[in-house]
């Protein structure tokens, strides 16, 4: 079975509109790109798209009520909302330092969620 996917390249402001042709789960061709980066991006995007998820977690006793956080590495795109659901259940106490692990193995991805901001303890 042959299928076609259209996507916009994010490599540069050109934003090439690319068409990826797949057959039996394998990339058959990439067209529309104007450089090698586009080809590479398109192949990854149709076979294994990943994203780093950035959000915030509840923190108590700190100089802010939220601490920003991210998945330490990229996670499968399809898991974004599962990851968000788990991040939204995190509750930590100040102080928090950049790099602190707030949650291990988020949504079964094997990736930890880490703090991206220092929160000082107050009061």
């Amino acid at each position: 079975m042959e299928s076609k996917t259209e996507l916009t390249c994010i490599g540069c402001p050109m934003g090439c509109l690319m068409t990826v042709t797949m057959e039996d789960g394998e990339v058959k061709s990439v067209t529309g790109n104007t450089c090698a980066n586009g080809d590479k991006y398109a192949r990854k995007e149709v076979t294994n798209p990943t994203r780093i998820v950035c959000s915030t977690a509840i923190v108590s006793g700190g100089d802010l009520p939220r601490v920003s956080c991210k998945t330490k590495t990229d996670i499968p795109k399809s898991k974004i909302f599962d990851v968000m659901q788990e991040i939204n259940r995190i509750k930590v106490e100040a102080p928090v330092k950049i790099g602190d692990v707030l949650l291990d193995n988020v949504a079964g991805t094997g990736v930890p969620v880490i703090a991206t901001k220092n929160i000082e303890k107050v009061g």
Partner: protein
Amino acid sequence: MMNYDIVIVGGGPAGLAAAASARKAGIDKILILERDNRLGGILNQCIHNGFGLHTFKEELTGPEYAQRYIDQVLEDKIEYKLNTMVMDISKDRVVTAMNRNDGMFQIQAGAVILAMGCRERPIGALGTPGYRPAGIFSAGTAQRLVNMEGYMPGREVVILGSGDIGLIMARRMTLEGAKVKVVAEVMPYSGGLKRNIVQCLDDFGIPLKLSHTVIDVEGKEHISAVTIAEVGPDRKPIPGTEERYTCDTLLLSVGLIPENELSRGAGVEISRVTNGPVVNESLETSIPGVFACGNVLHVHDLVDYVSEEAERAGENAASFVKAGCRDSSSGEDIQLIATDGVRYTVPSTINLGRMDKMLTVRFRVGAVYKNAAVSVYFNDERVMHNKKRIISPGEMEQVILLKDKVAAYKDLKNITIRIEQD
């Protein structure tokens, strides 16, 4: 009155980098004045990643990027005052400020570095028809509420303007459970980065309507709906294209304006194109000893360029102080001229006496150009012709001028930068 060698107005990315580089250049008494309750400026609320690719060769979030500079400032024991509002800067570099601990106080500065950043264009500046109920926020305000204070502005969102902050907030609100119904952009192209259009809109199926704007806002107490229509080349709504969207939130991402009330008060000459100070090669304004860098000077696309520019402002302010707070220029200034698609250049003038070996000239264009070239002319002779596949208003462009070449050119009066289509 207090005395400092350099006073920096603003503790965001520009102010922090300027402080660290002035210290590196050997200046002892430096003071940063910041009106917020922490250093780092707008980066504190930019929790998404993608910062620092040029500077640190890795992708950081905003707060992580800011912390690297904050750590440097702390390590250097550079003084700073938080919750402090600067009220006035005089021509003689007397800075008047106030806070709850010190009351009102004045500082005689050897040099002043303006690093106040920019503000978002508000709905009042757009002349949008309809009511003005609660529920209308600038995208950056919503970003601060969600990412720092933990409040959600609403659940059903329409976004006007496709600047990067608007795109980033489309994703952020979606991740937090809101429904972002549409992003309307009055121009036929988005001012945002391609990467943000794909990863913030396409990833979540949020439609981007180019050449569309909001023509009505409904709701007495709280916003209940907006009407969006297509616009023609004259940017006027086309009858019959109206679409109504119910919503409880309207976010605006319609441009940034450098915040120059203090600069104007001091008598600094302001560019009508950038809304920032007119500066020379040293990033010095029309008032000797007053320097500017970052988004107060011109709105940047990447914070990495802000840091780099601010470091230069810090070094130049240090040189000014070390020279006894006197002008070290020599001979006539060379004028930089922006034309044929180039909207402005930073700097606007070059004095050879103060020019470094290499000078980065930054600018933006006014439209999208494909297969065009950035050309540099010394007087009437073309000396540079850099071909580019695409040049767009959303991205800052630059050319690098070498002092050797500039100095060697006989009777150089003007350097012109223009876009040429082959």
